[in-house]
């Protein structure tokens, strides 16, 4: 931009004295400097959709505990006097074919679905991070064998594996989670391995090694924190997947068993009576979609916020 016209004659002799400045000044980086995580958080906060997702998850989390008590009903008591009632002041979300209060069941289902989703995703992360970090860090033979095992497990479609496992396992909450994590961790292991392989050749790891830090220390103090970004994003995007898988299995009758209720079992029961009582489907279906949407937008928001390429 051109400066306002300056008449050179107007300058004073004193203007031509050497500029006195702090020596350190010249080396200082111009522009605001922020740490990676601060910067990421600032960008995340600008993402309205992601913040909305956070709000939804917090709300669902609270309601999964308070929902039952608020309604004054529990999720398992049958009441044959009020079967299949449409939403009313008595039963805010109506009742199901056994006269159970759908509002209470929805929030109980939230607890189960969120628990399964988060638990399965966390176990995936733990196994995946350990597996991937070891394979990526040691490389060579170890890496080859570990990743070959992962590849073979991965070549069978995920849902097919889970279904087959549920056929032979006794049905229950934990066996469901076990079946879901049986091959679920592979994706995470691959991501972590890739990150670790890329990072381990970088200078600060070399520096740490030269300073005599041992392998464990390097792996968990230096490498894992730097792969935290991709891990967080994958974790967030695994949760909706797990919630979907649970609902899918429950729909096939392989998931959570009565008297436990999850959004999946509620959906499954409601679909058979869809023509007559669509509201029974609406509530669990709406909350499954809302939860998956919330986790998806949070995950997208985190990816955008953590991606250094977007820093331009």
């Amino acid at each position, binding site marked *: *931009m*051109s*400066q306002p016209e*300056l008449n*050179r004659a107007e*300058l004073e*002799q*004193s*203007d*031509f*004295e*050497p*500029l006195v*400045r702090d020596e350190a*000044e*010249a*080396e200082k*980086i*111009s*522009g605001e400097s922020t740490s990676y995580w601060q910067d990421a958080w600032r960008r995340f906060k*600008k993402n309205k959709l992601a913040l909305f997702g956070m709000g939804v998850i917090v709300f669902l989390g609270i309601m999964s505990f308070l929902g039952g008590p608020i309604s004054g009903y529990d999720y398992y008591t049958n009441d044959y006097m009020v079967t299949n009632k449409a939403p009313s002041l008595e039963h805010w979300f109506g009742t199901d074919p056994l006269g159970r209060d759908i509002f209470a069941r929805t929030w109980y289902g939230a607890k189960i679905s969120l628990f399964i989703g988060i638990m399965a995703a966390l176990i995936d992360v733990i196994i995946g991070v350990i597996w991937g970090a070891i394979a990526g860090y040691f490389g060579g033979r170890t890496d080859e064998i570990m990743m070959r095992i992962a590849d073979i497990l991965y070549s069978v479609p995920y849902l097919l594996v889970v279904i087959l496992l549920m056929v032979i396992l006794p049905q229950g909450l934990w066996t469901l989670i076990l079946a879901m994590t049986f091959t679920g961790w592979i994706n995470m292991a691959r991501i972590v391995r890739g990150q670790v392989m890329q990072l381990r050749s970088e200078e600060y790891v070399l520096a740490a090694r030269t300073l005599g830090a041992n392998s464990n220390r390097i792996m968990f103090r230096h490498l894992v924190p730097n792969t935290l970004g991709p891990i967080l994003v994958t974790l967030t995007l695994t949760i909706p997947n797990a919630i979907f898988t649970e609902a899918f299995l429950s729909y096939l009758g392989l998931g959570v068993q009565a008297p436990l209720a999850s959004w999946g079992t509620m959906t499954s029961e409601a679909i058979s009576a869809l023509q007559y009582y669509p509201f029974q489907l609406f509530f669990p279906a709406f909350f499954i979609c809302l939860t998956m949407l919330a986790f998806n937008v949070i995950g997208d928001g985190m990816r955008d916020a953590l991606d250094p390429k977007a820093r*331009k």
Partner: protein
Amino acid sequence: MKKVLEVKDLNVFFDTYKAEVQAVRGVSFDLHEKETLAIVGESGSGKSVTSQSIMKLIPMPPGKFAGGSIKFNGEELIDKSERQMEDIRGKEISMIFQDPMTSLNPTMTVGKQIAESLIKHQNMSKAQARKRGLELLELVGIPNPEARIDQYPHEYSGGMRQRGMIAIALACNPKVLIADEPTTALDVTIQAQILDLMRDLQDKVNTSIILITHDLGVVANAAHRVAVMYGGKIIETGTVDEIFYNPTHPYTWGLLGSMPDLEGDSDEELQAIPGTPPDLADPPKGCPFAARCPYAMKVCENHMPDYFELSDTQKSACWLLDERSPKVEPPESAKVGGSKRDEQ
């Protein structure tokens, strides 16, 4: 000599999510017929933005022209529509990019990529374009063009790809060729070949060249005139001799000092310029180099100097040239040794 291109007070800004980045701030220069003008500066100095603005290849938004003019053969380019620009790009003005590994389409044969602009601008048939393509490959020194024309870029080496790029750029005998760091990504031996090739072709097809580079070695070899850019401004301009033997701006001194001198005294050390370039989202009020300049005065912080005309061809924007400022001699490191003189 006739002026092919006149750039006056060009300003190009970018809207980023943080702030408006003033990438180019009042840049003016002329390009004459058959001349090579080198624009020199470190990354972020605005040299690539300037060159891409001439082709109007800056994506808008986020980029925008914030004043100034670009005249090609007397015609204002800034006012031209996209459609009108299409007739200029590749035909009148063309461009070579830095990295030949990424600047050719990987899924199209080199021959087809050359043919495209011939078919577009010279109404050639496919067969004619192919014939001309073979000539062009021959011209840029690609051996066995008959076989090479149907190959994909990945079957070419880096140097050959850059030759291919030059063939594409010169296909329609453009008046102006903009070469944006054409040798940076290449091996040193290949660099020299590519520069030689460009100089040869300039004689053959009468093209004016704008050579964007950060490497003064390249400038000494290939250019007639030099414009030194810093912080979005041209801070010194002159003929190659003037810039190398009578530099007046401390930033130019710094650039010369950071250039390795193969035949110089062995005890001469390479001088890095301390500090980092200014943040153009919040450009300094005065001279952009003041914060890093070892000779900075109070005036430098507050006022951007006008150009001091040192000769018909050399201009410099530095307050040291004012008679009231203390006399400063360029540092030893900025004095160009015998080797560079010989190259002229």
